[in-house]
């Protein structure tokens, strides 16, 4: 079937519900020929993006909606995470990650946060962020065919 198929998922902005999205992503990836390690990466990227929407866009407040849309085509698996909360500064996505190398001897360099976006970027082939109409959308794409750069 050389077509794009779409499924939309929605949860409330509560941490307990994020696991449900993780489970669903896992099952959806099971329909592709992706090996388990790749499925785990995609699940991780989606969970990080949804964590961010809950924590940053909605400031941890329950009662809001987080929408996740999956598009599956023979070439790619793409996922959009949408919220209607406070938008992210798009520079967060494009700015090079402050390259603090964790140093065993100096606990000050041990990162407690600020890892979500860079995890998403390493797990997916492309990541975009779009703000408009009171809605913020992070779209991630993972190529299904051919090899991908490490």
């Amino acid at each position: 079937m050389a077509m794009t198929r779409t499924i939309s998922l929605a949860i409330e902005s509560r941490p307990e519900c994020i696991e449900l999205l993780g489970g669903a992503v896992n099952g959806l990836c099971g329909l592709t020929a992706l090996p388990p390690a790749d499925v785990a990466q995609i699940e991780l990227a989606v969970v990080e993006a949804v964590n961010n929407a809950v924590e940053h866009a909605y400031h941890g407040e329950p009662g809001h909606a987080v929408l996740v849309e999956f598009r599956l085509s023979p070439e790619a698996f793409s996922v959009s995470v949408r919220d209607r909360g406070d938008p992210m500064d798009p520079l967060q996505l494009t700015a090079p990650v402050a390259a603090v190398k964790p140093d065993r001897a100096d606990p000050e360099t041990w990162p407690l946060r600020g890892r979500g976006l860079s995890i998403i970027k390493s797990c997916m082939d492309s990541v975009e962020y779009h703000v408009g109409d009171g809605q913020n959308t992070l779209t991630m794409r993972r190529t299904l065919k051919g090899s991908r750069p490490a």
Partner: protein
Amino acid sequence: MVVTHRTVEGIDVIALSGRLMMADVAQVRQRLLDVVEKGGGKLALDLAEVGFMDSSGLSVLVSVFKAARLKNGEVVLLRPNPTVRSLIELTRLQQIFSIFDEEATALARLR
């Protein structure tokens, strides 16, 4: 997330089981910090049964290590599965956490 705790010659061995995600972070962090506070600050965290972990879960490991370090202790990791191991490598945390496949080796290191 199930947390199991035992002590081996003054070293705290804690096995986590399940998925470590944002929803579990507060509870697991508190549980582990309690162990650090009451014990000697030497912890082996057995991750063999952790099927999934995100960056909020990693931050728990880091903050527990920070607390242990204040007692001149250390936190080492046991048997992370391939997914969790690659998350640790992605975030370069293998620079601070030693990772072991055998409990005996981990305990020897902490002793």
